[in-house]
């Protein structure tokens, strides 16, 4: 069971305070109406679901209600860090996206 650092509350909190939000930085097609069914289906349902480092969304449900990103290793449950959405995006991009 995790302790997550909420980048907004600036505290470590127990997992029960949080909600899991799935893979972070999924890209909604900018013009959904023009993409084909497969592309839309891919956005809707397909997941990388990596075994290893995963960029993911969590929300601080009982606290600040903010969504933020966590980099977590799904093979070990180790956590590399958590960031606000904006800060996380920078780190993520700097790493070259989901790796």
């Amino acid at each position, binding site marked *: 069971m995790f302790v997550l650092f909420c980048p907004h509350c600036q505290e470590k909190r127990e997992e029960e305070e949080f909600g*899991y939000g799935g893979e972070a930085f999924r890209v909604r097609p900018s013009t959904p109406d023009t993409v084909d*069914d497969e592309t839309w*289906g891919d956005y809707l349902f*397909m*997941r990388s679901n990596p*075994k290893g480092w*995963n960029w993911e969304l969590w929300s601080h449900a009982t606290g600040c209600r903010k969504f933020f990103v966590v980099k*977590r290793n799904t093979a070990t*449950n180790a956590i590399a860090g958590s960031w606000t959405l904006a800060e996380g995006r920078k780190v993520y991009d700097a790493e070259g996206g989901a790796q």
Partner: protein
Amino acid sequence: MKKDYSLWSLFTKGLKHNEGWDPAWRSADPKPSYNVVIVGAGGHGLATAYYLAKEHGVRDIAVIEKGYLGGGNTARNTTIVRSNYLWDEATMLYEHALKLWEGLTEDLNFNVMFSQRGVFNLGHTLQDMRDIERRVNANVLNGIDAQMLDTAEVKRMIPILNTSKNARYPVLGASYQPRAGVARHDAVAWGFARAASKYGVDIVENCEVIGMDLAGGRIQGLQTSRGFIRAERVGCVASGHSSVLAKMAGIRLPIDSHPLQAFVSESMKPVLDTIVMSNAVHGYASQSDKGELVIGAGIDHYTSYTQRGSPHIIEHTAAAIIELFPIFSRVRMNRQWGGIVDTTPDACPIISKTKVKGLYFNCGWGTGGFKATPGSGNVFAHTIAKDDPHPLNKAFSLDRFSTGHLIDEHGAAAVAH
């Protein structure tokens, strides 16, 4: 197939200090090439190999397993077998499996201890009762044994159940499927392994698939921890690890791998002779032949491949069980564990060809695939052998996620089982 497990063989071998028993299955080293390679020696993978050999005459088969066979979710599920699903497609698939279950021990010459003790799906809200009515009627029209029971009938059949009106979620009724049951999970893997092995299937344990070779849109073979294996066709049946395998072929799947936990009590004298499941209270229980209560609930909400989950989930499950069965409050948990379940958006499996020729996936069984083991293997074998889905798994192809033809079983399966 020679039926060499019997009272007689126990007797004759017993006389000779049980020294004459043969290996249940033959452990093989991987050959350089196979006609069909099945990745994953869980119940589903082994069943696939068995039916490929038995029903489709495919001879040159290997099942590749990274650990010990039957050590994935097959080893860690709560063994509930039922077919009272909601949608026709799902019901028919699970019923196909249930029919196979009913003859499986004899077919495999291996007692998988399939015990048809019935399942109760409790209803606690008016909407639960509507859903149950809908599902039971659909089941009956599909030829499935299903009944609807009111609170008094449920109480009569399960006297230890808390049916108080003052309960947080009072029991308003239940659906009941008498033919549902439980089985000895490990025996299913062993039984299929033994039977497949007798047909000449190579079972290769401790051999992990780490890459896939593709050329011209076709599968060529597999990189494994024990070298390259050429294969004309590859069927991936890796449950929680399906996305990992898919990635090797450049495919993404609509799967999230979550921990699903379960626990057992200490072994006790018989006290619960059926299976009780409750979505609203969020727990379910049965008692094994050995006497331990086998208990589970829902998944941990985050993804993880660790085969362990968070304790508050277990605590909530224990609370749910006490809510349903107040007399179990003083009973003790002996062991808890977790598996990695491959959940899909519509809580239905994927048994499908892929855009890579010769590469097939059977996955997405999530929290409820044990019950499908023989049926899943049976239709998947057909799919691989014919390069064309069996009528029962046509609807479970990957393209439903772009056509929108989802088969949403969430209502019927909110709690794992």
